[in-house]
């Protein structure tokens, strides 16, 4: 039974979910994250679900739980990389992922985490 690796990127933690998650794996992930958030003083958690073809209520609950845990530890949670068909299905299912912020990719997600400036540099080209 393997663990899901957690990487540190600046002041954030990055988790990439690639395997089909079952109960023990999900519980272990939540425990590991909680420990690491405190240990590394992380300001945010990025969860990359771009490899997930299916997100059901079990995964949805897990994501919402992680968001709640992080919030208690003063960190933001951003879920990134949701596939279109997954988004369509979640809407139909009525799962709103409460308390979970979302972004298209990890790069955008990082800008949403508190403490990092929402950096849009002043490009002259943008003004054409």
């Amino acid at each position: 039974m393997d663990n899901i690796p957690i990487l540190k990127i600046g002041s954030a933690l990055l988790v990439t979910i690639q395997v089909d998650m079952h109960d023990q794996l999900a519980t272990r992930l939540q425990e590991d994250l909680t420990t690491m958030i405190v240990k590394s003083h992380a300001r945010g958690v990025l969860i990359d679900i771009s490899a997930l073809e299916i997100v059901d209520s079990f995964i949805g609950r897990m994501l919402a739980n992680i968001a709640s845990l992080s919030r208690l530890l003063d960190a933001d949670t951003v879920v990134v990389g949701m596939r279109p068909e997954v988004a369509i299905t979640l809407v139909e299912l009525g799962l709103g992922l409460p308390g979970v912020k979302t972004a298209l990719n990890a790069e955008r997600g990082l800008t949403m985490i508190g403490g990092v400036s929402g950096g849009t540099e002043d490009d002259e080209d943008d003004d054409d």
Partner: protein
Amino acid sequence: MATATVASDLAKLLADGENTIIKGWLTALQKTGDGRISTQEVESQARDLLRALTKAVSDGATDVESHSFNDVRAILEGFSRSRALQGFSPSETATFVFSIKEPLFEQIRSKIKNAETIAEQTWAVTQLIDKLGLFTIEAFQRTREELIARQREEIEELSTPVVKLWDGVLALPLIGTLDSARTQVVMQNLLESIVREGAEIAILDITGVPTVDTLVAQHLLKTISAARLMGADCIISGIRPQIAQTIVQLGVQLNVVSKATLADAFAMALTRTGRKVTRIKTQASNGGTAPPAAE
């Protein structure tokens, strides 16, 4: 229903009289035909059908749905499919099959002496050809329906373009009625574009949508929710006064920012993504025609 002996007699008739039958058949077809298909092609199709028919009947089979008639059905299926795609009418297509009756009856009358046998054979042929004619018409119908479905899909695809207005800003000008099927296509197009372009904001412009009822409103809501779940935000533009009234009356909560025009929505999208538009200061040129002073 013809018995096995009637069937094998028929088989012999068909085999022996192939050329005569084909000749008679083509003559009948020429009377009704309009020259869209070349005579050679018609002749080759007629011959293929007659041969397959002869073989099926010689097996003693009389049921057109049976295994022995597989080849016959395949030929008729292919034939009516190509006629349907070329724009022939169902009657014209079925006439190809029905026209074989005349030469067949001729063949029966000339080769058989016994009156009762003539009657039996004529009846057997009539039943057989009628069933094959009906089969042809149904195959024709199926092809037509497939064609219509495919064309409808293409129209749906064409009428839901996603436009990139700027880096990270997409616009979806919706035109026409939004039904369930179309909304699926629209939603998928939009979401896939969001991923592909890395859009932060999607503008749904409904200036071209004539009416909004509860269903349409729900469809819009679902599209917006899905986009949000993926990390993009939405702005609606082009809500006309009547539509605004309808939405309020329906009690639908469109929980999204709404702007009157696509231009307004675009301006807002630019601001939201940290940009602004400024006027370029014109420089006075050295001699020549000086540009008019910027107002």
